[in-house]
């Protein structure tokens, strides 16, 4: 990406393949409204691709969602694609509208879900702000993790082709 060393994120004992994905309930935002939804509500209907991303407005969030939109994961594969960041429901609505994302986004302002998954990112230079490090989990209908990618550098971006292969194998 660049010809110098990128900042490493601290090692983390994150939720990994084969483990039960921690359940959580948070406001899930779509283009029209938001309501409390549990991850288990979603997995009850089938596999879920859970995309943790930096706060809305940060360029990695924009890049990730534009890429997912352009690859048409929502329509191409049998997994429900949802995001999760510390941004408020109002910011999520703008993010969805501005990028024409057709995925829904969880709002997790206190980053408790990030803590549960071991994907926290204490932001340097933003006192008191912890958000989700970029991470992608493919979770099956039994809520077992089938695939996990967690950022080790800052910034870092999901291996889209690898994830696409996993989605194609569903």
């Amino acid at each position, binding site marked *: 990406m660049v010809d110098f060393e990128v900042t490493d994120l601290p090692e983390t004992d994150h939720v990994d393949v084969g483990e*039960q994905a921690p*359940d959580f309930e948070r*406001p899930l935002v779509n283009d*029209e*409204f*938001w*309501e*409390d939804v*549990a991850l*288990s*509500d979603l*997995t*009850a209907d089938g596999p879920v691709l859970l995309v943790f991303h930096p706060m809305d407005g940060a360029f990695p969030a924009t890049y990730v969602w534009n890429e997912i939109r352009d690859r048409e994961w929502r329509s191409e594969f049998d997994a429900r694609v949802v995001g999760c960041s510390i941004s408020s*429901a109002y910011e999520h*609505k703008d993010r969805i509208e501005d990028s024409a994302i057709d995925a829904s986004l969880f709002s997790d302002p206190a980053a408790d879900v990030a803590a549960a998954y071991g994907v926290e990112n204490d932001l340097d230079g933003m006192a008191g702000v912890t958000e989700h490090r970029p991470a992608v989990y493919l979770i099956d*209908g*039994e*809520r077992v993790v089938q695939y996990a990618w967690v950022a080790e550098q800052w910034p870092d971006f999901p291996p889209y082709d690898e994830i696409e292969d996993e989605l194609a194998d569903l």
Partner: protein
Amino acid sequence: MPAESADEQPQITLYRLQACPYCERVVRRLHELDLDFQSRFVEPMHGDRDVVKRVAGVRAVPVIVDRKTGVTMAESANIVDYLDGTYGAATDGGEPAAATGGDA
């Protein structure tokens, strides 16, 4: 371990706007009547509330959808009257519904 089955969805859905006093009035009565309900929060901008328009024919909130009775209703005073008439009485401590005012 198999996934927990999803909780049964409440029969009542309330379309509401954060901090809208008319909506809070309905929420208060729903709690007083100990009714389970699901909140759906919508946009402050009227023009962006297409989902409410689709469901209820108006863009004003609050709106409730009661799948148990098949009732969809707007106007907080009417909703409170409806809830009292269907699920309880206004006499057990709740405030009586005042005359209708413009909802949000």
